[in-house]
């Protein structure tokens, strides 16, 4: 009975989201700009929540509380710093400039923007290729999260692969039908939903254990080190490199980066920017503190399980636990549908059209996009079945890969002297080095290269510095190519 109820709540939620997508589909036009960017017509509330919901995924909803449970509540500060503050500042530095030149020149993807500026199809394809490469583990992360969520909710009756398959099927269906308008609308629903549900969850659990003071007291009794800031996993190196690589990585995430193009007006972008830190705090505080408080609760968290569903199963009624899982599924879907949609725009516009068939009709391109989405999601699903790491590990790998794009892009946006060769060197070399580090931990052939050095400093941070240095250095010693046009990125005062 309870099992049926729980599954009913989750599936019911998915159906509501799908219905909303179908309504959006009905008001959509059949142009690429509408499908990928909702014709640049997104207002403040929807922009705020679509960015919010897109950004927050299985990584936040399950990975975050898990880490807080295992290592202490400092994760709140790490994520708050990178998402709430650093990302907001980058939103201004990268996002606004992209919006200005994007709406003037009609860009849809990051690769398109850079390719046009430097007059290079190769650079365009390189950016798209790198983005799709790192998008893959992140889509996989959502499927892993959904699989684990349903196992936790149903006590193992629904197997891990079943949960992962459910979300995969749903995502494919959704993205191939709805386009960005549908994604943005459901994101708004999903963002509001997860925000309210996580507060109700915190209130419910806290009232059951006797309030905030009692929960913190029990946590400190079980893990005294959780009370003081820093220590253990949280070395300054870990905090700084995680915050920097993730925040910069996020801005280069296709689905987030494309959000920089969709705002209706500058005022929309600005309002969202100012509200951002508060919104981030409102979600992270209850979610991560629940994870940390769980350390003091008399619960058993099985190996490989997520802590949040275990806590809820203990302290909240089954239907409510199911609602929270639905909220978490919402977080994962709202991220992965956007990822797949952005991924398909990168694939069709930056790889397929320029390299394979320049004269493809809109209709053909639309089909290629949809087939691409289905293939990509299915491959990620298969990979997710192998569970190559924890949610945080898989997520962090993807973030760092994207972060290596950020400095060359900032150079291109602000420094007219940047050359094509500088861009290619600044992107390709650090990417190759980082890929080697990541692959060395998976492939048995080569000795494992360390991911962190000197007590928690991420290798990716060093590679970010390298990418910036290479872009600037190589640009200084090479001449701009005739096809490049720095004025494409000039901001006009109107």
């Amino acid at each position, binding site marked *: 009975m309870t099992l049926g109820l729980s599954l009913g709540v989750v599936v019911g939620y998915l159906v509501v989201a799908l219905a909303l997508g179908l309504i959006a589909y009905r008001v959509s036009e059949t142009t690429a700009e509408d499908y990928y960017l909702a014709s640049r017509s997104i207002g403040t509330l929807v922009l705020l929540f679509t960015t919010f919901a897109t950004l927050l995924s299985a990584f936040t909803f399950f990975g975050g509380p898990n880490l807080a449970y295992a290592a202490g509540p400092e994760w709140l500060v790490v994520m708050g710093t990178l998402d709430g503050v650093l990302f907001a500042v980058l939103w201004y530095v990268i996002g606004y400039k992209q919006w200005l030149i994007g709406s003037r020149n009609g860009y849809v993807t990051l690769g398109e923007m850079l390719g046009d500026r430097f007059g290079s199809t190769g650079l365009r394809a390189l950016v798209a290729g790198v983005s799709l490469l790192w998008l893959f583990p992140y889509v996989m992360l959502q499927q892993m999260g959904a699989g684990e969520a349903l196992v936790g909710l149903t006590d193992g009756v629904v197997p891990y692969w079943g949960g992962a398959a459910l979300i995969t099927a749903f995502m494919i269906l959704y993205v191939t039908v709805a386009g960005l308008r549908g994604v943005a609308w459901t994101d708004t629903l999903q963002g509001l939903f997860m925000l309210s549900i996580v507060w109700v969850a915190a209130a419910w659990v806290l009232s059951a254990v006797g309030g905030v003071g009692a929960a913190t007291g029990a946590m400190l009794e079980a893990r005294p080190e959780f009370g*003081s800031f820093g220590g253990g996993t949280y070395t300054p190196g870990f905090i700084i490199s995680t915050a920097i690589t993730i925040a910069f990585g996020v801005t280069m995430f296709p689905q987030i980066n494309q959000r920089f193009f969709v705002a209706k007006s500058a005022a929309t972008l600005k309002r969202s920017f100012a509200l951002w*830190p508060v919104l981030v*705090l409102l979600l992270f505080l209850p979610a991560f503190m629940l994870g940390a408080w769980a350390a003091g609760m008399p619960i058993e968290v099985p190996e490989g399980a997520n802590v949040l569903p275990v806590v809820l199963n203990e302290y909240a009624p089954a239907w409510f636990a199911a609602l929270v899982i639905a909220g978490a599924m919402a977080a994962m879907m709202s991220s992965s549908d956007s990822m797949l949609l952005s991924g398909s725009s990168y694939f069709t516009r930056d790889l397929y059209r320029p390299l394979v068939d320049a004269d493809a009709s809109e209709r053909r391109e639309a089909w290629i996009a949809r087939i691409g989405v289905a293939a990509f999601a299915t491959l990620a699903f298969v990979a997710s079945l192998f569970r190559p790491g924890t949610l945080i590990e898989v997520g962090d790998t993807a973030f760092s890969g994207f972060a290596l794009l950020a400095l060359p892009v900032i150079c291109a946006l602000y420094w007219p002297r940047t050359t094509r060769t500088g861009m290619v060197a600044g992107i390709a070399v650090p990417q190759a080095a980082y890929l080697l580090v990541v692959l060395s931990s998976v492939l048995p052939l080569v000795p494992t290269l360390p991911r962190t050095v000197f007590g928690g400093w991420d290798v990716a941070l060093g590679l970010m510095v390298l990418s910036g240095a290479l872009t600037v250095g190589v640009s200084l010693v090479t001449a701009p190519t005739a096809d490049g046009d720095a004025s494409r990125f000039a901001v006009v005062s109107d």
Partner: protein
Amino acid sequence: MTRSRSDLVWIPTFATLVAFAVPWPLWGVDRVVAGLPVWIWWHVAWLGLCATLFSLFVRSGAWERGMGREGAAAAERGGGGR
């Protein structure tokens, strides 16, 4: 021109906001205040401060001037957006 020079204040302001979103001065401090470790309160207050200063930044017009859009910045100062 003087407006642009005063806009430069935002650079150290943003740097400070980013740097101290992590409560470094409370490293190792374990006092509990109102049910939560005191460094969590620091972080909560800090993000509130960030939102406040961000909206001041938006309203000041420095955003547009920083991007080289003098005209839009002036319009913003005069008309308070659109």
